[in-house]
């Protein structure tokens, strides 16, 4: 037992020293212009999703997603999200692709997050990504319209698509 304990401690110390040396000598690649390796993407995505699932509000949405709500959310989206997350009917955002991890392109891949989860992510942001906490700038009501819009980005009606492009009155 004593040998096991000493061996374990030695292994942990060796790992810590090795990690510190690796980082301190600058061997960790920090450039953002690479694609995250699959193992990293899978581990990150599943961990972030699990955490958001735990933290997001239990209430699943703001109510009925009327055209009015979706248009309001779409206008917010075009104002603040489109630069990184892509525009409807357009190819993927070149700017969003230059982040590490890259910004998900909602109009190409949709989202696996529920409305309440999208609300939570938009409000609080995701650390260690380019996703900023928008709760600083928008009210909860506004963020609920945004999450209603984003979770339906693949199935928006022509009325909503047209309405969101109209300039504010």
């Amino acid at each position: 037992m004593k040998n096991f304990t000493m061996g374990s401690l030695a292994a942990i110390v060796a790992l810590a020293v090795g990690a510190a040396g690796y980082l301190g000598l600058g061997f960790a690649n920090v450039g953002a212009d690479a694609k995250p390796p699959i193992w990293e993407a899978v581990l990150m995505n599943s961990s972030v999703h699990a955490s958001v699932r735990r933290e997001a509000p239990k209430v699943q949405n703001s109510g009925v997603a009327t055209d009015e709500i979706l248009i309001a959310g779409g206008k917010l989206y075009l104002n603040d999200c489109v630069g990184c997350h892509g525009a409807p009917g357009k190819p993927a955002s070149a700017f969003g692709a230059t982040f590490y991890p890259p910004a998900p392109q909602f109009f190409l891949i949709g989202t696996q997050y529920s409305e309440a989860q999208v609300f939570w992510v938009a409000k609080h942001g995701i650390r260690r990504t380019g996703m900023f906490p928008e709760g600083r700038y928008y009210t909860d009501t506004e963020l609920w319209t945004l999450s209603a819009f984003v979770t339906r980005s693949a199935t928006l009606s022509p009325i909503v698509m047209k309405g969101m492009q109209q300039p504010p009155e």
Partner: protein
Amino acid sequence: MIAALACGSVGYLRLGLAEVRADMNTPTWEGQLVKFAVQASVRRNAAELHNPPPPTDENLIAGGKLYLGGCAGCHGKPGKPPDNLPGYLSPRQFFQAGTQYSEPELFWIVKHGIRNTGMSAYGPFYSDQQIWTLAAFVKRVNNLPPTLLEGIRAKR
């Protein structure tokens, strides 16, 4: 022992116990560790880069114009109060805090970005020559004559 650590970590992550929200302050230990690793890596990668262009007024104004177009939204504008945001995305406010990075290091960061931060890679959008002028500007951001700052704001 190592297997137990690995299993524990994966379980912790999969159960969603890792905090991911960005709107709270970075713990000091995490901030220091990341800074330590990022600075070392940038230093190593930028070591091969030489010959930044001379800091002529022309180059600094060109860099300053790029800065206002692509960087000022997050990193601050000349003569404006800093946007010191609490939380994980708190980009360096150059007009107050300056920078410890050298010109080749700044060039490398702008071109390649820093992963797992909000700093994206600008290599796809700007030429090397443009990025060098930007690095020259950012390095001297707190020692610029007022006439030069006016030149940056002037329309071409």
